[in-house]
């Protein structure tokens, strides 16, 4: 008698890995609420409402109350943080600690299907936390237009443009993940402070602006604000999108290569 196992369709395989991650999430989602909802709301409260109460609407804030100006950018910041953290220790741990990836690739599931699923999972987590933030922040009146929903896909893309590179790093490092601390300290935090989240980068010295231009966060901020308040010509928008797509694709390809190297030993 033959085995009852069979190789399922590649698309279904990706779905099964997501099902596995979802099974985990259903048991553990509560732990993720703090980081993915409380943190952005604290930023919005302290900076948007608190500090923002002292800031008069003007050309710099697109003539909007500061909290309204800030809210879409906090969405992008949140997406970037969630994408980065979901791509860091959970991925490293699946190689190194519980070695789940090795268990999965011993089944008919291939390495490419695994990488695809892990990528989609990060995207899904970013979408979920973004929607939760949107819902709660709306209750506080931080959003004025339903067009802010357009900012969600944009912020997901900005998050993935950064997260995929973190995933490639997670698939490469073999220590306890010390590199992530440095990425968070020296890339994520400065990026959040200087890439147009709290004020336009026109307020920065001219020489330092190119540093903001290379960050996915700045492109995400520009697009997310344009999505809600709307004034950006199509070509500029296409340019921002193209840059984010390119970064995402590059990070994903590198991550894919690192997964192959690490799993096919």
């Amino acid at each position, binding site marked *: *008698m*033959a*085995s*009852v*196992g*069979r*190789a*399922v369709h590649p698309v279904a*395989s990706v779905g*099964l890995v997501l*099902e*596995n991650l979802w*099974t*985990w999430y259903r*048991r*553990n989602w509560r732990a993720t609420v703090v980081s993915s909802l409380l943190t952005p709301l604290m930023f919005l409260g302290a900076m948007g409402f608190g500090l923002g109460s002292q800031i008069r609407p003007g050309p710099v804030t697109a003539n909007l109350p500061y909290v309204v100006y800030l809210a879409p950018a906090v969405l992008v910041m949140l997406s970037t943080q969630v994408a980065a953290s979901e791509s860091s220790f959970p991925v490293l741990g699946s190689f190194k600690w*519980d*070695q*789940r990836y*090795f*268990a*999965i*690739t*011993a*089944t*008919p*599931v*291939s390495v490419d299907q695994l990488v695809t699923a892990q990528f989609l999972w990060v995207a899904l987590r970013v979408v979920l936390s973004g929607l939760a933030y949107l819902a709660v922040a709306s209750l506080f009146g931080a959003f004025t237009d339903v067009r802010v929903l357009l900012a969600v896909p944009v912020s997901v893309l900005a998050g993935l443009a950064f997260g995929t590179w973190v995933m490639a790093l997670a698939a490469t490092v073999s220590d306890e993940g010390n590199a992530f601390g440095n990425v968070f300290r020296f890339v994520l935090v400065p990026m959040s402070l200087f890439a147009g989240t709290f004020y336009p980068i026109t307020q920065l010295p001219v020489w330092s602006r190119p540093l903001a231009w290379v960050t996915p966060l700045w492109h995400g901020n520009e697009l997310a604000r344009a999505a809600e308040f709307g004034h950006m010509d199509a070509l500029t928008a296409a340019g921002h999108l193209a840059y984010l797509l390119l970064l995402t694709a590059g990070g994903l390809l590198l991550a894919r290569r690192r997964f192959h190297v690490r*799993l*096919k*030993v």
Partner: protein
Amino acid sequence: MRDALSGVPASVAGVSDDAVLVQADGLVKRFGDFEAVRGIDVKVRRGEAFGFLGPNGAGKSSTMRMIACTSPRTAGELRVLGLDPDRHGPRIRARLGMVPQQDNLDNELTARQNLQVYGRYFGLSRPQVRARATELLEFAQLTDRADDQVEPLSGGMKRRLTIARSLVNEPELLLLDEPTTGLDPQARHLLWDRLFRLKQSGVTLIVTTHYMDEAEQLCDRLVVMDGGRIVAEGSPAALIAEHSSREVLELRFPLDEQQANVPLVRDLADRVEVLPDRLLLYTADGESVLGAANRRGVRPISSLVRRATLEDVFLRLTGRTLVD
């Protein structure tokens, strides 16, 4: 327990008994400059329990990963279930069970969820994996911990769960990489019992181990590996008969006196092996050699006459002990 195994191929009707499940010719695995597997030939037939015996670093795990179709071969020919792993990896893996050296369970899921989630990867429906999980939890004696998280389970329980998980697709070929390393004696015996049942029910087993007692317990046939090469092949009994005497006399001396005693006993046995902590005298009759040694004034701290084991075979073939 029969029910738990009902899906395992109990009969191999329609397939000839000598069907070859694994065939390797000149199989090589290289990592950069390091050659882990240096051209080995292996043939495993359906229903066999086949072993790779060797010390750490002999190339056993690399060989297993190539057979499991998770690691591409560097050179040589390999057929698993009659298919080429390079071209049919997913199709082959669908019919294999793999127990890796280190448990890789989903520690934050329950035991039952681990089995169900894993079964889904092999294309089983939700009702199928639910039923299968219940059977396998029974088989692994984990029914009362079924809905507990895996993390706090004991090492033996995790190992049994990993083995149960590898059976979720009713594999035709089960690969076990050092199944009992790191377990206490009681847990090992429980595992051996489970593996025996599988063997009885007709599952083909491939086991790597550096425990000679495990190899003798489980394997019909085995190869001894050392430094990436196969140095001997046969059944445990045949290997012992070919490469060792029937009995072994072990003599222990105070450390500074051992060397002086070697010349006194050298001609009493077929062969004398000098280990750092003891002398091994290979002979057909250990007791009479011990008597003869005593008459020559040899006074060991302790002496032991035992049957020859695969450890002795390994020592003979490689000049080293299995577990340093």
